[in-house]
């Protein structure tokens, strides 16, 4: 078990470090890094001065060391536009995103398990076909389009829900629904297929031969095994959820990391973009370790390796 966890953590850490290195060098390789930090119409003098002040005229390796040193102090650069440390701004935005993502994942997983399990119980049946098409549609729908169509119907026409912003329960409904569509659609399919193989397994036959009720067979014997692949996929989908969060936050005006990042890209505020990436990569690193821990807890075969 320790070996499994150690190997997985090293892999995750490797990915984290690799990404940091990649972002740093990519930023330097694209030519003049001042382009990334300064507005496109900045004068040549300003550029030179800026480059010198931030050491862009020094060798790349030297820059990288000071970059790593700063980062280890939690210094991820300073937003010129907002006149504040980038890290502070990103950390402020993070809880909003985490709340949105957390609520979305909980709802998506819970719904997907129930629907996927029921679909797998009678493969080819009416429920299976309907849920199959619905989940595919969920996974295929462009989230930004669903978001603005939702606004059009529920906010503009019916005036039931607010168009955007943060607030009480009504403000959460549309962002969560839109954000949950994709992970929900994909998870239903994963739950269904892993339940199908679990239900066809010999241990399910044993359970039935023991006279265990069908509900226990599905929701205890089969589901508990199906959980192993569900957890793996749910972990990947949580990472993918950041993609959706960028769009949903932008459309619904949620002050999270996704919106912050897109705004910064449009305003060409590189320190914030960079800090968002670093912190997101770190969050994903932690998430991966958490997933591995859950996996170990769920699968005794790994635990006793």
């Amino acid at each position, binding site marked *: 078990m320790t070996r499994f966890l150690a190997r997985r953590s090293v892999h995750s850490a490797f990915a984290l470090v690799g990404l940091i290195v990649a972002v740093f060098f990519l930023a330097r390789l694209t030519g003049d890094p001042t382009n990334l930090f300064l507005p496109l119409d900045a004068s040549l003098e300003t550029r030179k001065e800026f480059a010198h002040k931030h050491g862009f005229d020094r060798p790349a390796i030297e820059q990288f060391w000071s970059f790593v040193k700063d980062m280890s102090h939690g210094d991820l650069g300073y937003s010129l536009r907002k006149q504040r440390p980038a890290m502070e701004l990103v950390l402020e935005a993070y809880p909003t995103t985490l709340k949105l993502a957390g609520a979305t994942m909980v709802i998506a997983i819970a719904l997907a398990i129930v629907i996927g399990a029921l679909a797998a119980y009678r493969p*080819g049946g009416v429920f299976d076909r309907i849920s199959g098409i619905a989940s595919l549609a969920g996974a295929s729908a462009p989230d930004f389009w669903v978001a603005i169509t939702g606004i059009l119907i529920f906010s503009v026409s019916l005036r039931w829900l607010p168009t955007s912003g943060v607030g009480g329960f009504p403000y959460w409904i549309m962002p969560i629904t839109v954000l949950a569509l994709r992970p929900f659609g994909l998870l239903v399919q994963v739950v269904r297929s892993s339940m199908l193989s679990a239900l066809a397994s010999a*241990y399910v036959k044993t*359970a*039935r*031969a*023991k006279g*265990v*009720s069908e509900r226990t067979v599905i929701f205890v014997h089969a589901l508990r095994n199906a959980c*192993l692949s569900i957890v793996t996929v749910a972990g990947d989908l949580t990472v993918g959820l950041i993609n959706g969060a960028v769009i949903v936050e932008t459309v619904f005006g949620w002050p999270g990391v996704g919106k912050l990042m897109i705004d910064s890209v449009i305003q060409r505020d590189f320190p914030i973009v960079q800090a968002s990436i670093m912190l997101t990569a770190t969050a994903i690193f932690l998430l991966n370790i958490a997933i591995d821990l859950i996996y170990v807890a769920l699968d*005794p075969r790994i635990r006793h390796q």
Partner: protein
Amino acid sequence: MPDNAAPLLEVADLKIEFRSGRETVYAVNGAGFSVRPGETAAILGESGSGKSVTASAIMRLLQCPPAFIAGGAIRFKGDDVLAMPLNQWRRRCGREIAMVFQDALAALNPVFTVGWQIAELFRAHGERSGKKAEARAVELLARVGIPDPVNRARDYPHQFSGGMRQRVMIAMAIALGPDLLIADEPTTALDVTVQAQIMDLLQDLQKEIGMAMILITHDLGVVADVADHVAVMYAGRVVERGKVRDVLGKPAHPYTLALLESVPQLQQNSQSLRPIVGSPPDMAAPPSGCAFHPRCRFATGECKVKLPPKVAVAPGRVAECHHAKSVFNGG
């Protein structure tokens, strides 16, 4: 056991098909046999002869589709099993009829402890106290000969050896003292030395509980050692049945005869059974007439076109062969 006691289980003219759009596999084509209380019946056959499918059908474990029960009846204690509502039948599974599967590693749930899986049997059949169920599980582990049962109950299936896992399976099957135990190739996946131990255990438990047993196997030796009655299956049909002593001593079906003839090879230190000439039939397109005719040295023109009748060659002896009488009389 008296031969005239009412049968505990009766399978009559059972037909099972596996349908996919392109082809239908006729896995079982009219199998029939019966088991009386307390006796051991063996179903003997090659892989693909339909013996395991028949066992699954009795327990109603077939996945339909692709499996379809195309005809016949299964009666357990006089009740029509196939006509019974499924959940009503499930409640009797484990309590009155139980099954031991071939591959215990696959048949035990990998993510639950062995103790939990045995205790589940008691919980499913009315034991409300989890503690009591667990305690009874430990008792059972001891009863099937697993050392240190208190600690072993907390282990997972993958932590057991093959023989010990099969003991766990058996513990689960006998937990509620069923009237009938179906053992589907219970020793095939095990080492030869362990095989004998498991068979001994099964026989001891059978005597203790007084249950009947259906032993599904391809091993003539096991049949000769353990069973009272035998049904020989070929191509989804029971081609011969009768008392083990009689059938193995004086077969009435060419297939049984061929099986017996291929056994002495083993004692001549040949590593494997010499297969019977030809190969088992393709059950998607079974041979016409008697399914065994392409491999049968007694075959005549009649065998190719006409399904053989059930021929009673002696009291309690039935064989499905046009030439049963001449085979029986040493033809």
